[in-house]
């Protein structure tokens, strides 16, 4: 069982790393120099020490092995890491100012790491700075974590059609991580660079430095945690802000929902790869149409003047599609069509290999091609034409895994919605919370979980269900569901 030792070793390293990352909120609390922030400072310091000790202990006890990781180890690492990290990241929330219950703390942390952005906290404007920064950092770590997983690990595991994105087409299961570390370094660099530029733009337009850091991290991770109760609405109404803040934020949300691997290619001079990519084009077209439809709906309902309507439609539309979940106004109140449209958009998400969540654009493309090919076969049963995706032929195995993914996605959605209604949530809250959690968007619709509400008032059971939904959606289901098959544990 050398595989299990490697798995534990990596868990130890991750826990230690989370402990290290707590230095930033500690510094933020310390710099704030406010008595109110003191309990938070203590909580973070204590949690940092505990995490580092346990992490280091686990790492040393299991000991590093050079043994290559098997497919099963990779599944274990991909699934387990998110859960262990969540537990340790929740410590400071339980010990700090708010004294959150274990349920609430886990919900908040999982919502952070999965880049969902659903929160149980209120009065954010006066919250301790360390706590706010910690939430943003969790987003940021979760975002880079999922991009690396989507580029380096998921394609090898053939999860939900991701085998289309294998970097070398000859790769098969076991000898996988050859160029992985190099790619990971490159992606991390791009991600950090994007965050930095986003921070500078926010700052230059008049956001305070602390707000700018937090929102930059939450934007690039397509997360959605804000430092204000009113989310981006606070800045929309703030006279200090000059410049097109909503437009810039929308741009960065869209960028974070594009495949990061292509940014890497673009940096190496191959910019046309980004423009010629079928997924990117399709995605931009969807965004354009969705925002246009939303804009027309807003225009006809006469709630806002024309220019405001355009900006709000663009920002909120993009925020929902990409799974970010920032809000400028309560779009629950935009009438049934806007609500229905935004609810449907929730499912789309972004491109594979990005920080965003949801069904992913390429799966829609594959499903459309499957339909097309199927329709032709109905009329001409003997025709043989193989559809291609970005130049690669689509095999029956890919069709199957993509379509199975759709099935699992909608089944999970329905199951979660029904489970939520077991806790006596009304249908709108249950449906929209289920969809928003699976697609890692954050706010749902209605009074409770809509953009102007928060998840604190939900019963504990519902919070656990939703936290599970976020993890399932974020890890593309099969990374977790595979643990439930008996075949996985048989050697």
């Amino acid at each position, binding site marked *: 069982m050398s595989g299990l030792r490697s798995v534990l070793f990596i868990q130890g390293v991750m826990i230690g790393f989370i402990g290290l990352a707590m230095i930033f909120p500690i510094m933020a609390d310390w710099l704030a120099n406010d008595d109110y922030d003191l309990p938070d400072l203590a909580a973070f310091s204590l949690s940092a020490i505990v995490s580092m000790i346990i992490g280091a202990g686990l790492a040393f006890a299991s000991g590093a092995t050079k043994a290559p990781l098997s*497919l*099963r180890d990779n*599944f274990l690492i991909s699934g387990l890491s998110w859960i262990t990290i969540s537990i340790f990241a929740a410590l400071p929330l339980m010990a700090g100012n708010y004294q959150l219950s274990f349920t609430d703390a886990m919900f908040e942390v999982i919502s952070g790491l999965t880049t969902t952005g659903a929160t149980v906290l209120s009065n954010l404007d006066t919250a301790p700075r360390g706590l706010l920064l910690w939430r943003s950092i969790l987003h940021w770590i979760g975002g880079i974590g999922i991009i690396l997983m989507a580029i380096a690990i998921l394609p090898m*595991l*053939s*999860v939900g059609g991701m085998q289309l994105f294998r970097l070398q087409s000859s790769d*098969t*299961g076991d000898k996988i991580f050859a160029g992985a570390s190099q790619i990971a370094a490159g992606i991390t660099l791009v991600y950090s660079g994007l965050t930095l530029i986003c921070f500078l733009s926010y700052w230059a337009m008049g956001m305070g430095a602390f707000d700018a850091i937090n929102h930059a991290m939450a934007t690039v991770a397509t997360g959605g945690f804000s430092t204000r109760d009113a989310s981006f609405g606070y800045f929309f109404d703030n006279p200090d802000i000059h410049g097109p803040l909503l437009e810039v934020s929308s741009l960065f949300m869209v960028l974070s929902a594009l495949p990061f691997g292509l940014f890497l290619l673009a940096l190496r001079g191959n910019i046309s790869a980004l423009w010629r990519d079928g997924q990117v084009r399709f995605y931009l077209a969807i965004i354009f149409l969705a925002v246009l439809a939303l804009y027309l709906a807003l225009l006809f309902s006469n709630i806002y003047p024309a220019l405001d309507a355009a900006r709000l439609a663009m920002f909120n539309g993009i925020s929902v599609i990409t799974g970010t979940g920032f809000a400028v106004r309560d779009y629950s109140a935009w*009438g*049934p*069509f806007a*609500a*229905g*449209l935004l*609810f*449907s958009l929730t499912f789309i998400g972004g491109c594979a290999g990005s920080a965003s969540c949801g069904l992913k654009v390429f799966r829609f493309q594959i*499903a459309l091609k*499957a*339909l097309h090919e*199927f*329709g*032709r*076969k*109905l*009329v*001409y*049963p003997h025709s043989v034409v193989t559809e291609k995706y970005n130049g690669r032929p689509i095999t*029956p*195995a890919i*069709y*199957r*895994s993509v*379509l*199975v993914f*759709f*099935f*699992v996605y*909608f089944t999970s959605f*329905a199951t979660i*919605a*029904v489970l*939520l*209604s*077991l806790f*006596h*949530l*009304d*249908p*709108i809250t*249950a*449906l929209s919370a289920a969809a928003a959690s699976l697609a890692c968007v954050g706010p749902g*619709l209605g009074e409770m979980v809509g953009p102007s509400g928060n998840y604190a008032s939900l019963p504990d059971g519902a919070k656990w269900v939703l936290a599970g939904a976020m993890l399932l959606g974020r890890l593309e289901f*099969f990374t977790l*569901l*595979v643990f439930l*098959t008996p*075949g*996985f544990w048989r050697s």
Partner: protein
Amino acid sequence: MIDWRPVLLVLGFFVSLLGIAMFLPMLADLGHDNEWHRDNWKAFAVSSAFSIFIGAGMMLANWGRVETLNLHQGFLISGLSWLVLSAFAALPFVLGAYELSWTDALFEAVSGITTTGATVVTGLDDAPYGFLLWRSILQWFGGVGIVIMAVAILPMLSIGGMQLFRMQSSNTGEQAFSDTSKIALALTTLYVFVTIICFMTYWGMGMNAYDAVNHAMTTIATGGFSTKDASFGYFLNDPNITGPVDMVAVFFMILASLPFGLYLLAMRGRVKPLLKDSQVRFFLGLVAIFTVIVLINVFSHYNNHLPTAFRHTLFNVISVMTGTGYASADYGLWGPFAVGLFFCIMFVGGCAGSTSCGLKVFRFQVVLAALWTYGRRLVYPNGVFVAHYNGKPLTNDVYISVLNFFFIYFATFATTAVILSLLHLDPVTALSAAGSAVANVGPGLGDIVGPGGTYQPLPDAAKWVLSVAMLLGRLEFFTLIVLLTPSFWRG
């Protein structure tokens, strides 16, 4: 070029048949002693004459011996006959006592012929006999039509995995329709026979003959039109009823949801296939599971009185699941969990080759098999896993067409729901009406379209959208969609 003559000949035959069938409601009206009711006979007389005239004209103009039909003609007949028949069937509603608008009349006719059972008419208890009888006849026709299509035609067209049910495995598209007429005749005989038994049982238990005829026809068709506003609830409170009439309905609804092809085998002495069929077992298992889950939940709603709670639960679960749409109680009041679950199970439907609607049980079985092999493949990338269904190996073709079916099903459902919300229906009404129409159930949820309401208050556009959704769902989507593809008309 497509040879239209056989297509028009068959359509003409169907239209004349419909015209002849209109004699029955005409006679029912003439036999009534109330003036207003009796006047309704003229509507049927005029419509009947018109239908027979047009139908006979179409037949005479295209007279000739039909040797074989090719694939294109098969699709055209399957798709067009439902549209044409709906239009002619709506005539008596427009001309009759209620003078329905064309929109309402078509909605009612489509809802009848697709065995949905959604209605725009209230005051059923006092409605003209002919009017009610015509609705029941439409459902009865729709039921036998879909059984014949599902057993004899759809498997040849390979729609949504129906190729699994080809009678001889060697059949391929072109030479398909040879023994269709023999099978159709046998199925029709069986269908008539079961309806008569159902009628006798209802009658024997104290329903008057007229109610018994109507309900027998709509039970066997899993339709759901009733002659009472209170639907089946009326008979539970009627002192004239001497037996457990709701349990009889349960029995016949289940009977109508099993594959009719297996009954044919059973009547030839081969009972084993019926008992051993995995689809039948799976369906009965699902019924049992859902009944128990709902029963636990609504137990307290009926003051912990087990027999009452059980009867209502069983009746409504089966009515919703098989797509019948009778109600013995307003299950909208059973709390959010029961409502949410009802919403989900209405998508399940019955077995392929029955009169019931929805996704069909065998498709769930195929998807579960796909998930199973997929899970194995994730862990053992080089393994070869073949799942079987009723002894036949599942091929990639079957998987892909079934998964495509799921995709198009949910896409249609979501599109319908968004369009309905565009027409300013509230989310619960929009979602449940869309789901109920696509799955051909009938009643939705909420005050407007729930078991206690009707579709009358919906805007005209919504009724059209729902009519299209009902037809799409009933004809398994591809039968209609394929007519819209350019490649169908080419070559």
